[in-house]
């Protein structure tokens, strides 16, 4: 059972490392884009800087989904199928929600 899982176990460490690494990389990307835009000649954000900041934001948005995906993989590898199924359900809800949202975004102008 997962209730016996110790805080320092493999899953916790893997998730913590992934989130810390992803957060660090995302922050650096956004910081670089922000500095570029601040030092750019036109006062408004230049196209490249906007793209860099946008990439960092995309990484931030994908991190929680990546975390859930990792949980599915780790639970299945550990043969903890009950929690694997729960994590898969959460992941499915995220994917369906995102897909529906994108589809609606395509229909509604704005």
């Amino acid at each position, binding site marked *: 059972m997962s209730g016996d899982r110790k805080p320092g176990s493999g899953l916790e460490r893997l998730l913590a490392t992934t989130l810390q690494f992803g957060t660090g990389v995302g922050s650096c990307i956004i910081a670089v884009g922000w500095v570029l835009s601040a030092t750019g000649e036109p006062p408004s954000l230049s196209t490249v800087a906007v793209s860099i900041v946008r990439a960092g934001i995309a990484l931030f948005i994908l991190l929680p989904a990546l975390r859930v995906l990792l949980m599915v993989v780790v639970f299945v590898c550990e043969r903890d199928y009950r929690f694997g199924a729960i994590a898969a359900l959460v992941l499915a*809800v995220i994917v369906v929600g995102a897909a529906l949202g994108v589809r609606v975004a395509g229909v509604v102008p704005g």
Partner: protein
Amino acid sequence: LFVGALPGNGRVRQRRPPSNAAASFLRPTAGKQNGSIVSSLGIGSGDLTIPALDTALRLPIKVSSATSNFMIGVTAAASGVAYFARGDIDPAIAGPIALGSVIGSVLGARFLMAVSGEKLRLLFVVVIVALAAQMLQAAFQGHMTLHMT
């Protein structure tokens, strides 16, 4: 939106005394009630998820806040993709907010491990009361402000 993506969930396991009758009545539907109120009011789920977990499920306040944080991240991921695809996320606004959230969450995670549960709950009461005052003010002025917690 960005808060849930961050590390530093409080790994604290404590047992609280058995719940009272009101809590055991609330428990089976705590999530549903929380979801209904939050979605109808349009406020961030953390403000109500923490009291729901803390009161109805009798979880320690640190576990409640960490769990709530994780839940926000997962739910915001779905809507975040949609808003992003729609182009509603302005990099000029979201970039600085993301950086500030990272710094705040690192400090907050350290604070969470250092502070006692009782003090944390008192602090949260202050936040909830302030939020309620803000909502009342918004209601009387005829418009809602957005909360991102």
